[in-house]
Protein backbone atom coordinates (compact mmCIF):
# COMPACT_ATOMS: atom_id res chain seq x y z
CA UNK A 1 0.00 0.00 0.00
CA UNK A 2 1.62 3.20 -1.10
CA UNK A 3 0.12 4.83 -4.13
CA UNK A 4 -3.21 3.75 -5.60
CA UNK A 5 -4.25 4.67 -9.12
CA UNK A 6 -7.76 6.16 -9.19
CA UNK A 7 -7.40 7.42 -12.78
CA UNK A 8 -4.36 6.48 -14.87
CA UNK A 9 -4.07 9.61 -17.01
CA UNK A 10 -3.02 9.57 -20.65
CA UNK A 11 0.31 7.76 -20.25
CA UNK A 12 1.88 7.33 -16.84
CA UNK A 13 4.86 5.01 -16.65
CA UNK A 14 7.86 4.22 -14.48
CA UNK A 15 11.10 5.51 -16.04
CA UNK A 16 14.71 5.95 -14.96
CA UNK A 17 17.74 6.92 -17.02
CA UNK A 18 17.29 3.96 -19.36
CA UNK A 19 18.45 0.47 -20.14
CA UNK A 20 21.94 0.79 -21.53
CA UNK A 21 24.17 -1.97 -22.85
CA UNK A 22 21.62 -4.15 -24.66
CA UNK A 23 21.14 -2.30 -27.94
CA UNK A 24 23.13 -4.88 -29.89
CA UNK A 25 20.34 -7.32 -28.96
CA UNK A 26 17.71 -4.96 -30.29
CA UNK A 27 16.67 -3.86 -26.79
CA UNK A 28 15.89 -0.14 -26.79
CA UNK A 29 17.16 2.27 -24.12
CA UNK A 30 13.81 3.78 -22.98
CA UNK A 31 14.08 5.96 -19.87
CA UNK A 32 12.79 9.43 -19.06
CA UNK A 33 12.05 11.64 -22.06
CA UNK A 34 13.26 14.60 -19.97
CA UNK A 35 16.15 13.15 -17.98
CA UNK A 36 17.16 16.52 -16.45
CA UNK A 37 13.74 16.91 -14.80
CA UNK A 38 13.87 13.30 -13.61
CA UNK A 39 17.31 13.81 -12.07
CA UNK A 40 16.25 16.99 -10.29
CA UNK A 41 13.07 15.33 -8.98
CA UNK A 42 15.28 12.66 -7.42
CA UNK A 43 17.79 15.16 -5.98
CA UNK A 44 14.91 16.98 -4.27
CA UNK A 45 13.89 13.92 -2.26
CA UNK A 46 17.43 12.75 -1.54
CA UNK A 47 17.38 9.82 -3.97
CA UNK A 48 20.11 8.78 -6.35
CA UNK A 49 19.79 10.90 -9.49
CA UNK A 50 19.00 7.92 -11.68
CA UNK A 51 16.29 6.43 -9.44
CA UNK A 52 13.01 5.57 -11.18
CA UNK A 53 10.13 8.04 -11.05
CA UNK A 54 6.71 8.32 -12.61
CA UNK A 55 6.70 9.99 -16.00
CA UNK A 56 3.34 11.70 -16.45
CA UNK A 57 2.15 12.81 -19.87
CA UNK A 58 -0.15 15.78 -20.64
CA UNK A 59 -3.26 14.59 -18.82
CA UNK A 60 -2.01 13.35 -15.49
CA UNK A 61 -3.39 10.64 -13.22
CA UNK A 62 -5.36 10.81 -9.99
CA UNK A 63 -3.48 9.01 -7.26
CA UNK A 64 -4.37 8.16 -3.68
CA UNK A 65 -1.37 8.48 -1.37
CA UNK A 66 -1.66 5.63 1.10
CA UNK A 67 1.55 6.16 3.06
CA UNK A 68 3.15 9.32 4.50
CA UNK A 69 5.87 10.33 2.09
CA UNK A 70 8.19 12.96 0.67
CA UNK A 71 7.68 13.67 -3.01
CA UNK A 72 8.84 16.13 -5.66
CA UNK A 73 7.25 17.08 -8.95
CA UNK A 74 9.34 18.58 -11.77
CA UNK A 75 9.15 18.98 -15.53
CA UNK A 76 6.11 20.34 -17.33
CA UNK A 77 3.42 21.98 -15.21
CA UNK A 78 0.34 19.74 -15.41
CA UNK A 79 -1.31 21.60 -12.48
CA UNK A 80 -0.78 19.15 -9.62
CA UNK A 81 -3.09 19.49 -6.60
CA UNK A 82 -3.37 17.65 -3.31
CA UNK A 83 -6.87 17.64 -1.82
CA UNK A 84 -7.68 20.43 -4.30
CA UNK A 85 -4.84 22.75 -3.23
CA UNK A 86 -2.08 23.58 -5.71
CA UNK A 87 1.09 21.64 -4.96
CA UNK A 88 4.31 23.58 -5.52
CA UNK A 89 6.68 22.06 -8.06
CA UNK A 90 10.50 21.90 -8.06
CA UNK A 91 10.74 21.45 -4.28
CA UNK A 92 10.39 18.63 -1.75
CA UNK A 93 6.83 18.19 -0.45
CA UNK A 94 5.72 16.12 2.55
CA UNK A 95 2.42 14.43 1.81
CA UNK A 96 0.10 12.96 4.41
CA UNK A 97 -1.39 9.54 3.83
CA UNK A 98 -4.99 9.43 2.68
CA UNK A 99 -4.67 12.50 0.46
CA UNK A 100 -5.51 12.61 -3.25
CA UNK A 101 -2.92 13.84 -5.75
CA UNK A 102 -4.50 15.05 -8.96
CA UNK A 103 -3.26 16.69 -12.13
CA UNK A 104 -5.81 19.24 -13.28
CA UNK A 105 -4.52 19.98 -16.77
CA UNK A 106 -1.55 21.09 -18.76
CA UNK A 107 -0.34 24.63 -18.11
CA UNK A 108 3.09 24.37 -19.67
CA UNK A 109 5.33 21.65 -21.04
CA UNK A 110 4.17 18.11 -21.68
CA UNK A 111 5.74 15.72 -19.16
CA UNK A 112 5.98 15.80 -15.36
CA UNK A 113 8.12 13.65 -13.10
CA UNK A 114 6.91 12.46 -9.71
CA UNK A 115 9.66 11.15 -7.45
CA UNK A 116 9.29 9.74 -3.97
CA UNK A 117 11.93 9.55 -1.24
CA UNK A 118 13.25 5.99 -1.06
CA UNK A 119 12.13 5.25 -4.60
CA UNK A 120 9.34 3.10 -5.99
CA UNK A 121 9.54 -0.62 -5.21
CA UNK A 122 10.19 -1.76 -8.76
CA UNK A 123 12.56 -4.56 -9.68
CA UNK A 124 15.17 -4.06 -12.35
CA UNK A 125 15.09 -5.84 -15.69
CA UNK A 126 18.39 -5.69 -17.58
CA UNK A 127 19.81 -3.19 -15.07
CA UNK A 128 16.95 -0.72 -15.38
CA UNK A 129 13.53 0.02 -13.92
CA UNK A 130 12.34 1.77 -17.07
CA UNK A 131 9.15 0.58 -18.73
CA UNK A 132 9.75 -0.72 -22.25
CA UNK A 133 6.16 -0.37 -23.42
CA UNK A 134 6.36 -2.25 -26.74
CA UNK A 135 8.56 -5.00 -25.32
CA UNK A 136 6.21 -5.25 -22.30
CA UNK A 137 9.06 -5.48 -19.83
CA UNK A 138 10.45 -3.42 -16.96
CA UNK A 139 8.69 -0.76 -14.89
CA UNK A 140 5.32 -1.66 -13.41
CA UNK A 141 4.34 -4.98 -15.07
CA UNK A 142 5.88 -3.80 -18.34
CA UNK A 143 3.10 -1.33 -19.02
CA UNK A 144 1.61 2.10 -18.31
CA UNK A 145 -0.38 2.45 -15.09
CA UNK A 146 -4.04 1.41 -15.06
CA UNK A 147 -6.97 1.98 -12.71
CA UNK A 148 -6.57 0.18 -9.35
CA UNK A 149 -2.84 -0.44 -9.75
CA UNK A 150 -1.00 -0.10 -6.47
CA UNK A 151 2.60 1.04 -6.76
CA UNK A 152 4.61 0.58 -3.59
CA UNK A 153 7.47 2.73 -2.48
CA UNK A 154 10.26 2.23 -0.02
CA UNK A 155 10.22 4.60 2.92
CA UNK A 156 13.77 4.44 4.21
CA UNK A 157 14.30 7.61 6.20
CA UNK A 158 13.62 7.48 9.92
CA UNK A 159 13.04 11.24 10.04
CA UNK A 160 10.26 10.69 7.56
CA UNK A 161 8.75 7.87 9.55
CA UNK A 162 8.89 9.73 12.87
CA UNK A 163 7.62 12.99 11.46
CA UNK A 164 4.18 14.23 12.38
CA UNK A 165 1.95 14.78 9.39
CA UNK A 166 -0.77 17.31 10.28
CA UNK A 167 -1.47 19.15 7.02
CA UNK A 168 -2.33 17.44 3.71
CA UNK A 169 1.05 18.59 2.59
CA UNK A 170 3.89 20.87 3.65
CA UNK A 171 6.86 22.20 1.74
CA UNK A 172 9.86 24.41 2.44
CA UNK A 173 10.00 27.94 1.01
CA UNK A 174 12.97 27.32 -1.24
CA UNK A 175 12.67 25.78 -4.68
CA UNK A 176 14.83 25.04 -7.68
CA UNK A 177 14.71 27.82 -10.24
CA UNK A 178 13.23 25.93 -13.13
CA UNK A 179 13.92 28.59 -15.79
CA UNK A 180 17.18 26.95 -16.76
CA UNK A 181 15.55 23.58 -17.32
CA UNK A 182 12.02 24.64 -18.31
CA UNK A 183 12.37 27.89 -20.28
CA UNK A 184 9.05 29.74 -20.52
CA UNK A 185 9.56 30.36 -24.22
CA UNK A 186 10.81 27.39 -26.21
CA UNK A 187 14.20 28.23 -27.74
CA UNK A 188 15.48 26.75 -31.01
CA UNK A 189 16.41 23.07 -30.81
CA UNK A 190 20.10 22.69 -31.64
CA UNK A 191 21.46 19.90 -33.80
CA UNK A 192 24.62 18.77 -35.53
CA UNK A 193 24.52 17.47 -39.08
CA UNK A 194 23.26 13.91 -39.34
CA UNK A 195 25.28 10.99 -40.74
CA UNK A 196 23.58 11.34 -44.15
CA UNK A 197 22.98 15.10 -44.23
CA UNK A 198 24.96 15.31 -47.48
CA UNK A 199 22.37 13.02 -49.14
CA UNK A 200 19.89 15.93 -49.00
CA UNK A 201 19.48 18.74 -51.50
CA UNK A 202 20.99 22.08 -50.53
CA UNK A 203 17.55 23.65 -50.51
CA UNK A 204 16.26 20.98 -48.13
CA UNK A 205 19.18 21.62 -45.79
CA UNK A 206 18.38 25.34 -45.87
CA UNK A 207 14.64 24.71 -45.35
CA UNK A 208 15.42 22.62 -42.30
CA UNK A 209 16.78 25.58 -40.36
CA UNK A 210 14.73 28.37 -41.94
CA UNK A 211 11.26 26.98 -41.34
CA UNK A 212 9.20 25.87 -38.41
CA UNK A 213 8.25 22.20 -38.14
CA UNK A 214 4.94 21.29 -36.55
CA UNK A 215 4.78 18.34 -34.15
CA UNK A 216 2.04 15.94 -35.33
CA UNK A 217 -0.47 14.12 -33.18
CA UNK A 218 1.27 10.87 -34.14
CA UNK A 219 4.10 11.64 -31.76
CA UNK A 220 5.02 9.52 -28.80
CA UNK A 221 7.96 8.32 -26.73
CA UNK A 222 9.35 6.51 -29.76
CA UNK A 223 9.53 9.60 -31.89
CA UNK A 224 7.98 12.90 -32.91
CA UNK A 225 6.69 13.10 -36.45
CA UNK A 226 7.09 16.65 -37.60
CA UNK A 227 5.96 18.43 -40.74
CA UNK A 228 7.14 21.48 -42.62
CA UNK A 229 8.64 21.84 -46.07
CA UNK A 230 9.26 18.36 -47.51
CA UNK A 231 12.92 17.32 -47.32
CA UNK A 232 14.32 15.78 -50.48
CA UNK A 233 17.32 13.65 -51.33
CA UNK A 234 19.76 14.54 -54.12
CA UNK A 235 19.05 11.17 -55.66
CA UNK A 236 17.10 8.11 -54.66
CA UNK A 237 19.40 6.01 -52.49
CA UNK A 238 19.02 2.83 -50.52
CA UNK A 239 20.56 2.89 -47.08
CA UNK A 240 21.38 -0.32 -45.25
CA UNK A 241 20.05 -0.38 -41.68
CA UNK A 242 22.42 0.99 -39.08
CA UNK A 243 22.32 2.24 -35.49
CA UNK A 244 20.09 5.21 -34.74
CA UNK A 245 19.75 6.92 -31.39
CA UNK A 246 17.77 9.33 -29.24
CA UNK A 247 17.77 12.60 -31.21
CA UNK A 248 18.39 11.15 -34.68
CA UNK A 249 16.25 13.03 -37.20
CA UNK A 250 15.48 10.55 -39.96
CA UNK A 251 13.59 11.31 -43.15
CA UNK A 252 11.40 8.60 -44.73
CA UNK A 253 10.60 8.80 -48.46
CA UNK A 254 7.52 11.01 -47.86
CA UNK A 255 9.89 13.85 -46.85
CA UNK A 256 8.46 14.44 -43.37
CA UNK A 257 11.12 14.05 -40.67
CA UNK A 258 10.84 11.94 -37.53
CA UNK A 259 12.86 12.85 -34.42
CA UNK A 260 13.64 9.59 -32.66
CA UNK A 261 13.34 9.87 -28.88
CA UNK A 262 13.68 7.79 -25.69
CA UNK A 263 11.90 4.71 -27.09
CA UNK A 264 13.76 4.89 -30.41
CA UNK A 265 14.33 1.56 -32.10
CA UNK A 266 18.01 0.58 -32.06
CA UNK A 267 18.52 0.55 -35.84
CA UNK A 268 16.92 2.25 -38.80
CA UNK A 269 17.27 2.49 -42.54
CA UNK A 270 16.17 6.04 -43.36
CA UNK A 271 18.74 8.77 -44.03
CA UNK A 272 19.41 11.04 -41.07
CA UNK A 273 19.52 14.76 -41.83
CA UNK A 274 20.30 15.84 -38.28
CA UNK A 275 21.12 14.74 -34.78
CA UNK A 276 19.63 16.78 -31.91
CA UNK A 277 22.27 17.57 -29.29
CA UNK A 278 21.98 15.70 -25.99
CA UNK A 279 21.59 18.94 -24.00
CA UNK A 280 18.42 19.85 -25.94
CA UNK A 281 16.66 16.46 -25.93
CA UNK A 282 14.88 17.15 -22.61
CA UNK A 283 13.35 20.28 -24.15
CA UNK A 284 11.82 18.27 -26.99
CA UNK A 285 10.12 16.08 -24.38
CA UNK A 286 8.29 19.19 -23.19
CA UNK A 287 6.96 20.15 -26.65
CA UNK A 288 3.32 19.15 -27.20
CA UNK A 289 1.74 17.86 -30.41
CA UNK A 290 0.52 20.89 -32.38
CA UNK A 291 3.45 23.08 -31.28
CA UNK A 292 6.29 23.99 -33.59
CA UNK A 293 10.03 23.46 -33.54
CA UNK A 294 12.71 25.74 -34.91
CA UNK A 295 16.03 24.00 -35.56
CA UNK A 296 19.42 25.62 -35.28
CA UNK A 297 22.73 24.11 -36.40
CA UNK A 298 25.75 23.94 -34.08
CA UNK A 299 29.12 22.24 -34.39
CA UNK A 300 29.98 19.02 -32.61
CA UNK A 301 32.37 20.93 -30.32
CA UNK A 302 29.59 23.34 -29.34
CA UNK A 303 27.26 20.40 -28.69
CA UNK A 304 29.87 18.85 -26.40
CA UNK A 305 30.45 22.12 -24.53
CA UNK A 306 26.69 22.61 -24.06
CA UNK A 307 26.40 19.06 -22.72
CA UNK A 308 29.27 19.59 -20.26
CA UNK A 309 27.85 22.94 -19.11
CA UNK A 310 24.50 21.34 -18.31
CA UNK A 311 26.26 18.56 -16.37
CA UNK A 312 28.18 21.21 -14.42
CA UNK A 313 24.93 23.06 -13.60
CA UNK A 314 23.31 19.84 -12.42
CA UNK A 315 26.34 19.05 -10.27
CA UNK A 316 26.15 22.47 -8.60
CA UNK A 317 22.41 22.14 -8.18
CA UNK A 318 22.88 18.79 -6.48
CA UNK A 319 25.30 20.31 -3.98
CA UNK A 320 22.93 23.18 -3.09
CA UNK A 321 19.91 20.91 -2.84
CA UNK A 322 21.63 18.46 -0.53
CA UNK A 323 22.81 21.35 1.67
CA UNK A 324 19.27 22.71 1.86
CA UNK A 325 17.88 19.28 2.66
CA UNK A 326 20.43 18.74 5.43
CA UNK A 327 19.87 22.17 6.93
CA UNK A 328 16.17 21.58 7.27
CA UNK A 329 16.62 17.96 8.22
CA UNK A 330 14.28 17.12 5.41
CA UNK A 331 15.85 13.76 4.85
Amino acid at each position, binding site marked *: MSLRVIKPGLLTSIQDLGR*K*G*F*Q*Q*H*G*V*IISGAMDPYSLRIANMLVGNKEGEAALEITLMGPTLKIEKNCLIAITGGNLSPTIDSQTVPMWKPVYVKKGTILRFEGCKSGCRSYLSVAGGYAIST*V*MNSKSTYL*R*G*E*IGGFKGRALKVDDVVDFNVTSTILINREFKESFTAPKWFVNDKEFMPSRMPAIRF*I*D*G*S*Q*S*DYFTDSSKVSFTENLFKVSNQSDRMGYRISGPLLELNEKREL*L*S*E*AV*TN*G*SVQVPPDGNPIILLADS*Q*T*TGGYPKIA*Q*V*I*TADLPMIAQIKPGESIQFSRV*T*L*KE*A*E*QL*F*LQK*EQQLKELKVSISLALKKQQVI
Partner: protein
Amino acid sequence: MSSMPEKLLNKTTCVLSPLGDSAIVITFGNEMKYGIHKKIKMFMDLLEDEPFAGFIECVPAFTNLTVFYDPLVIYKNQKQSNETETISPYEVVRSILETKLEDLKEDKKLTHRTVSIPVCYGNEYGPDLEYVARYNNLTTDEVVHIHSNGEYLAYMIGFAPGFPFLGGLSEKISAPRRSSPRMTIPAGAVGIAGMQTGVYPISTPGGWQLIGQTPTKLFLPNVDPPSLLQAGDIVKFHPISTQEYKEMILKEGV
Protein backbone atom coordinates in the same frame (compact mmCIF):
# COMPACT_ATOMS: atom_id res chain seq x y z
CA MET B 1 31.18 19.65 -42.13
CA SER B 2 31.30 17.47 -39.09
CA SER B 3 29.51 14.57 -40.73
CA MET B 4 32.01 14.18 -43.55
CA PRO B 5 34.56 11.37 -43.53
CA GLU B 6 37.33 12.51 -41.29
CA LYS B 7 40.21 10.16 -41.58
CA LEU B 8 41.10 7.18 -43.66
CA LEU B 9 43.23 4.58 -42.00
CA ASN B 10 45.67 2.61 -44.04
CA LYS B 11 45.72 -0.74 -42.39
CA THR B 12 42.03 -1.36 -41.95
CA THR B 13 40.30 1.00 -44.31
CA CYS B 14 37.49 2.64 -42.45
CA VAL B 15 35.86 5.99 -41.82
CA LEU B 16 35.02 7.43 -38.41
CA SER B 17 32.18 9.92 -38.00
CA PRO B 18 30.05 11.19 -35.12
CA LEU B 19 26.50 10.06 -34.37
CA GLY B 20 25.61 13.04 -32.22
CA ASP B 21 27.73 13.99 -29.22
CA SER B 22 27.93 10.57 -27.59
CA ALA B 23 28.53 7.97 -30.29
CA ILE B 24 30.96 7.28 -33.13
CA VAL B 25 30.21 5.31 -36.28
CA ILE B 26 33.08 3.28 -37.75
CA THR B 27 32.25 2.41 -41.36
CA PHE B 28 34.18 -0.52 -42.84
CA GLY B 29 32.62 -0.63 -46.32
CA ASN B 30 29.48 0.11 -48.27
CA GLU B 31 27.90 -3.25 -49.03
CA MET B 32 26.54 -6.27 -47.25
CA LYS B 33 29.30 -8.84 -47.45
CA TYR B 34 31.08 -11.34 -45.28
CA GLY B 35 34.50 -9.66 -45.31
CA ILE B 36 33.01 -6.45 -43.90
CA HIS B 37 30.95 -8.30 -41.34
CA LYS B 38 34.11 -10.08 -40.19
CA LYS B 39 35.97 -6.83 -39.52
CA ILE B 40 32.98 -5.38 -37.67
CA LYS B 41 32.57 -8.46 -35.50
CA MET B 42 36.28 -8.74 -34.73
CA PHE B 43 36.58 -5.10 -33.78
CA MET B 44 33.48 -5.35 -31.64
CA ASP B 45 34.95 -8.35 -29.78
CA LEU B 46 38.18 -6.44 -29.29
CA LEU B 47 36.34 -3.44 -27.80
CA GLU B 48 34.16 -5.54 -25.52
CA ASP B 49 37.13 -7.56 -24.27
CA GLU B 50 39.09 -4.43 -23.41
CA PRO B 51 36.59 -1.59 -23.06
CA PHE B 52 38.02 1.91 -22.62
CA ALA B 53 36.86 4.07 -19.70
CA GLY B 54 33.56 5.65 -20.72
CA PHE B 55 32.64 2.91 -23.20
CA ILE B 56 28.94 2.05 -22.94
CA GLU B 57 28.11 -0.35 -25.75
CA CYS B 58 28.41 -0.94 -29.45
CA VAL B 59 25.86 -1.77 -32.11
CA PRO B 60 26.96 -3.72 -35.19
CA ALA B 61 25.19 -3.20 -38.52
CA PHE B 62 25.73 -4.36 -42.13
CA THR B 63 28.58 -2.00 -42.96
CA ASN B 64 29.44 -0.25 -39.71
CA LEU B 65 29.83 -0.42 -35.98
CA THR B 66 28.44 2.34 -33.74
CA VAL B 67 30.27 2.86 -30.46
CA PHE B 68 28.33 4.60 -27.66
CA TYR B 69 30.31 6.38 -24.95
CA ASP B 70 29.68 8.63 -21.96
CA PRO B 71 31.16 12.04 -22.82
CA LEU B 72 31.21 13.03 -19.14
CA VAL B 73 33.44 10.11 -18.15
CA ILE B 74 35.74 10.79 -21.10
CA TYR B 75 35.91 14.46 -20.13
CA LYS B 76 36.68 13.79 -16.47
CA ASN B 77 39.40 11.27 -17.33
CA GLN B 78 41.03 13.62 -19.76
CA LYS B 79 40.79 16.63 -17.47
CA GLN B 80 43.04 14.91 -14.92
CA SER B 81 45.88 14.75 -17.40
CA ASN B 82 45.15 17.93 -19.32
CA GLU B 83 44.14 21.05 -17.39
CA THR B 84 44.43 23.74 -19.99
CA GLU B 85 43.05 22.82 -23.38
CA THR B 86 39.39 22.44 -24.22
CA ILE B 87 38.57 18.77 -24.41
CA SER B 88 36.43 17.24 -27.10
CA PRO B 89 35.23 13.82 -25.91
CA TYR B 90 34.65 12.86 -29.55
CA GLU B 91 38.29 13.60 -30.45
CA VAL B 92 39.48 11.61 -27.45
CA VAL B 93 37.36 8.56 -28.29
CA ARG B 94 38.25 8.79 -31.96
CA SER B 95 41.92 8.67 -31.14
CA ILE B 96 41.40 5.69 -28.80
CA LEU B 97 39.49 3.85 -31.53
CA GLU B 98 42.09 4.66 -34.20
CA THR B 99 44.79 3.15 -32.03
CA LYS B 100 42.68 0.05 -31.38
CA LEU B 101 41.90 -0.30 -35.09
CA GLU B 102 45.62 -0.67 -35.71
CA ASP B 103 45.58 -3.72 -33.44
CA LEU B 104 42.87 -5.39 -35.51
CA LYS B 105 44.28 -8.61 -36.89
CA GLU B 106 42.38 -9.44 -40.02
CA ASP B 107 44.12 -12.73 -40.75
CA LYS B 108 42.44 -14.28 -37.71
CA LYS B 109 39.59 -16.66 -38.44
CA LEU B 110 36.21 -15.71 -37.09
CA THR B 111 34.31 -18.48 -35.33
CA HIS B 112 30.55 -18.69 -35.66
CA ARG B 113 27.94 -20.28 -33.49
CA THR B 114 25.28 -22.26 -35.36
CA VAL B 115 21.73 -22.00 -34.09
CA SER B 116 19.02 -24.26 -35.49
CA ILE B 117 15.46 -22.96 -35.30
CA PRO B 118 12.50 -25.34 -35.62
CA VAL B 119 9.77 -24.13 -37.98
CA CYS B 120 6.25 -25.38 -38.55
CA TYR B 121 5.76 -24.39 -42.20
CA GLY B 122 2.53 -23.60 -44.04
CA ASN B 123 -1.20 -23.81 -43.29
CA GLU B 124 -2.35 -21.49 -40.50
CA TYR B 125 1.29 -21.17 -39.34
CA GLY B 126 2.48 -19.85 -42.69
CA PRO B 127 -0.45 -18.18 -44.46
CA ASP B 128 1.74 -16.84 -47.28
CA LEU B 129 3.64 -20.05 -48.08
CA GLU B 130 1.32 -20.76 -51.03
CA TYR B 131 1.86 -17.25 -52.36
CA VAL B 132 5.66 -17.54 -52.13
CA ALA B 133 5.48 -20.90 -53.97
CA ARG B 134 3.20 -19.55 -56.73
CA TYR B 135 5.31 -16.39 -57.11
CA ASN B 136 8.39 -18.53 -57.75
CA ASN B 137 6.71 -21.31 -59.76
CA LEU B 138 7.52 -23.86 -57.10
CA THR B 139 5.53 -26.25 -54.93
CA THR B 140 5.18 -25.40 -51.23
CA ASP B 141 7.35 -28.44 -50.43
CA GLU B 142 10.10 -27.06 -52.64
CA VAL B 143 9.96 -23.68 -50.87
CA VAL B 144 10.22 -25.42 -47.50
CA HIS B 145 13.08 -27.56 -48.75
CA ILE B 146 15.06 -24.59 -50.06
CA HIS B 147 14.36 -22.43 -46.97
CA SER B 148 15.30 -25.16 -44.50
CA ASN B 149 18.47 -26.14 -46.38
CA GLY B 150 19.92 -22.64 -46.37
CA GLU B 151 22.53 -21.26 -44.00
CA TYR B 152 21.92 -17.69 -42.97
CA LEU B 153 24.33 -15.24 -41.39
CA ALA B 154 22.92 -12.91 -38.73
CA TYR B 155 24.53 -9.62 -39.73
CA MET B 156 22.84 -7.65 -36.99
CA ILE B 157 20.01 -7.64 -34.47
CA GLY B 158 17.68 -4.66 -34.58
CA PHE B 159 14.24 -3.30 -35.44
CA ALA B 160 12.78 -5.22 -32.48
CA PRO B 161 14.42 -7.02 -29.51
CA GLY B 162 16.05 -10.20 -30.76
CA PHE B 163 15.10 -9.61 -34.42
CA PRO B 164 17.88 -10.95 -36.70
CA PHE B 165 18.73 -9.41 -40.06
CA LEU B 166 19.69 -12.55 -41.95
CA GLY B 167 21.66 -12.73 -45.17
CA GLY B 168 21.84 -15.71 -47.54
CA LEU B 169 18.29 -16.32 -48.74
CA SER B 170 18.12 -18.22 -52.04
CA GLU B 171 16.90 -16.06 -54.90
CA LYS B 172 14.66 -18.99 -55.88
CA ILE B 173 12.31 -18.28 -52.97
CA SER B 174 12.54 -14.50 -52.62
CA ALA B 175 9.23 -12.65 -52.69
CA PRO B 176 8.16 -9.00 -52.40
CA ARG B 177 6.55 -7.62 -49.25
CA ARG B 178 2.78 -7.73 -48.97
CA SER B 179 1.16 -4.74 -50.66
CA SER B 180 -0.75 -4.08 -47.45
CA PRO B 181 1.03 -4.89 -44.18
CA ARG B 182 -0.72 -6.99 -41.54
CA MET B 183 -1.84 -5.12 -38.43
CA THR B 184 -0.28 -7.78 -36.22
CA ILE B 185 2.18 -10.53 -36.86
CA PRO B 186 2.44 -13.07 -34.04
CA ALA B 187 5.68 -13.59 -32.15
CA GLY B 188 7.61 -16.48 -33.72
CA ALA B 189 6.41 -15.83 -37.28
CA VAL B 190 9.01 -16.76 -39.91
CA GLY B 191 8.87 -14.56 -42.99
CA ILE B 192 10.41 -13.54 -46.27
CA ALA B 193 10.77 -10.02 -47.67
CA GLY B 194 12.76 -9.54 -50.86
CA MET B 195 16.11 -11.26 -50.33
CA GLN B 196 15.69 -11.34 -46.56
CA THR B 197 14.33 -13.94 -44.20
CA GLY B 198 13.76 -13.52 -40.49
CA VAL B 199 11.75 -14.32 -37.39
CA TYR B 200 9.56 -11.86 -35.48
CA PRO B 201 10.48 -12.14 -31.77
CA ILE B 202 7.56 -10.02 -30.54
CA SER B 203 4.17 -9.31 -32.03
CA THR B 204 4.33 -6.25 -34.31
CA PRO B 205 2.65 -4.95 -37.45
CA GLY B 206 4.57 -6.00 -40.56
CA GLY B 207 4.56 -6.57 -44.28
CA TRP B 208 6.60 -9.76 -44.63
CA GLN B 209 5.30 -12.90 -46.34
CA LEU B 210 4.76 -15.41 -43.53
CA ILE B 211 5.80 -18.96 -44.37
CA GLY B 212 5.94 -20.59 -40.95
CA GLN B 213 6.01 -20.29 -37.20
CA THR B 214 8.64 -21.25 -34.62
CA PRO B 215 7.92 -22.25 -31.02
CA THR B 216 11.40 -21.01 -30.04
CA LYS B 217 11.60 -17.73 -28.19
CA LEU B 218 14.04 -15.23 -29.67
CA PHE B 219 13.61 -12.43 -27.13
CA LEU B 220 14.59 -13.58 -23.64
CA PRO B 221 14.21 -10.61 -21.29
CA ASN B 222 15.25 -12.59 -18.21
CA VAL B 223 18.34 -14.17 -19.72
CA ASP B 224 21.76 -12.63 -20.36
CA PRO B 225 22.10 -11.96 -23.26
CA PRO B 226 18.40 -11.24 -23.82
CA SER B 227 18.50 -12.31 -27.47
CA LEU B 228 18.75 -15.94 -28.60
CA LEU B 229 20.67 -14.81 -31.68
CA GLN B 230 23.75 -12.60 -31.84
CA ALA B 231 25.36 -10.83 -34.76
CA GLY B 232 27.71 -13.37 -36.36
CA ASP B 233 25.57 -16.44 -35.68
CA ILE B 234 24.83 -18.90 -38.47
CA VAL B 235 21.11 -19.62 -38.46
CA LYS B 236 19.50 -22.77 -39.87
CA PHE B 237 15.82 -23.66 -39.99
CA HIS B 238 14.50 -27.22 -39.67
CA PRO B 239 10.91 -28.27 -40.40
CA ILE B 240 8.73 -29.68 -37.63
CA SER B 241 5.21 -31.10 -37.75
CA THR B 242 2.14 -29.41 -36.27
CA GLN B 243 2.23 -32.06 -33.52
CA GLU B 244 5.86 -31.28 -32.66
CA TYR B 245 5.10 -27.56 -32.75
CA LYS B 246 2.28 -27.96 -30.24
CA GLU B 247 4.41 -30.11 -27.93
CA MET B 248 7.25 -27.61 -28.02
CA ILE B 249 4.87 -24.73 -27.27
CA LEU B 250 3.67 -26.62 -24.20
CA LYS B 251 7.26 -27.19 -23.09
CA GLU B 252 8.12 -23.53 -23.55
CA GLY B 253 5.26 -22.87 -21.16
CA VAL B 254 3.37 -20.44 -23.38
